[in-house]
């Protein structure tokens, strides 16, 4: 099974699945946190990012994920303050520099991203940053893979 939607795309585009010996059955997995983020959460993100009193921070790949009617990139293009982060901790610097705004961070990811996202929350409390919020959508790999596997049966 490959997990990432980008890998699925590359495998099919290059015909790799047809080159594999017939003993190997390739199953397409759930996709990464970007792909498996629920539609309603993308819509929530878009609604929050569109507010004038919000600076919306996110990992770059979330900006192109379609919501019901729009995406974060469109909000940014229309003048919304949507900023791409390298690290969740960058949200805190932005919060300190913009005390009159609420900084909302789109906290998505599998197990690898949860500890870094959590550190932003721990640090916000430790540094007394009160204008930081997080829109959370963490997923665990085993649950996502089991769900994909069960769909095959």
């Amino acid at each position, binding site marked *: 099974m490959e997990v990432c939607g*980008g890998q699925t795309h590359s495998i099919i585009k290059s015909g790799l699945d047809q080159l594999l010996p017939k003993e190997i059955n390739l199953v397409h997995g759930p996709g990464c946190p970007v792909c498996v983020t629920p539609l309603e959460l993308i819509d929530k993100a878009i609604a929050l990012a569109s507010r004038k009193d919000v600076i919306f921070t996110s*990992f770059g790949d979330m900006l192109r994920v379609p919501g019901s009617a729009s995406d974060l990139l469109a909000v940014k293009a229309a003048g919304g303050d949507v900023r791409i982060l390298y*690290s*969740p901790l960058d949200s805190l610097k932005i919060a300190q520099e913009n005390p009159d705004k609420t900084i909302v961070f789109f906290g998505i990811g599998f197990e690898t*991203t949860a500890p*870094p996202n959590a*550190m932003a929350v721990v640090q916000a409390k*430790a540094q007394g940053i009160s204008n930081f919020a997080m829109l959370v959508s963490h997923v665990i790999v085993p649950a996502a893979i089991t769900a994909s596997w069960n769909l095959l049966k």
Partner: protein
Amino acid sequence: MCLGIPGKVIELYETNGMKMAKIDFSGVIKEACMEYLPEIKVGDYTLIHVGFGLSIIDEEEALETLNLLNQIAAMGEEEG
């Protein structure tokens, strides 16, 4: 975002009570948080994901991964 990129720790320091490091990614220097790797030392290689060190990896594995990433990048350029 998905990628964990190997980098070498060239400096360790503290910011806001957190262990931080300057990481050398084959010439590009970026800051990363080492709070989850309290035992890391200058000269160690680490896998960086969203600005955080997630694990200490040995130099041979790090250099092999970087070499593969460079090869992929070079193939992309060839295709144009």
